[in-house]
């Protein structure tokens, strides 16, 4: 029982570490996006729209299966 608890504590710690890392990555990613040049930013906006459309297409296809 004790071992189980330790394991679960360890797992929780791992989870919280990965959440923290994820949060930090997200902040860094946001910072990077804000530092892009105008042409890079404009290109990225276009790419985001195309990727969103592609994702919706995949979702629609998955629903139809």
């Amino acid at each position, binding site marked *: 029982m004790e071992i189980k608890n330790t394991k679960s504590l360890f797992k929780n710690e791992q989870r919280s570490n990965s959440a923290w890392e994820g949060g930090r990555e997200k902040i860094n990613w946001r910072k990077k996006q804000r530092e892009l040049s105008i*042409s890079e930013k404009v290109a990225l906006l276009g790419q985001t729209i195309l990727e969103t459309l592609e994702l919706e297409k995949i979702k629609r296809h998955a629903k139809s299966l």
Partner: protein
Amino acid sequence: MQKVCDVLEQLLTDGVVEKYAIGGATAAGFHGEPLATRDIDVFCFLNIPEGSFLLTLEPIFKKLSEIGFSQFDEEGVIIHGIPVQFLSVSTQLEKEAVDNAAVVKWDTHTIRVMTPEYLAAIALTVGRPKDRARVVYLYELPNFRKSEFAEIITHHCLLGKWLDWAKGLQLDEKLN
């Protein structure tokens, strides 16, 4: 996307639209990080022929068709593979947002985007769940000018709505 900006500028230089500015998620994404969206919302003032009482987007579609963009999908006209939705400016707030849009130039290109403060004010008037999320996102941008936003929402009688939203969204309602 760069090519889409060029087409929008062409509509302006050819006099098809009097003024325009990109709004919605694309504009919001321009000021921070890209946000998921399916199209580009373009708010425009149309050049209405004298004696005409009917406001129509037809001149835009006609011109776009002439330069090779006649394909539509549910979101709008496809320009260089990207759906572009043209919206005629319908409120005083939208009119001001287009009038005060940021004009950003790079190389030989120009993009006209609504400022974060006007985008947030427009989101306040729409009020869908995604608009609430957008207000939070815009408000938290490092370059969000709170005093400018305060002026806009005061002028357009949105202060009460802002106080409600700020409370619900746990934002600092004080704008100075």
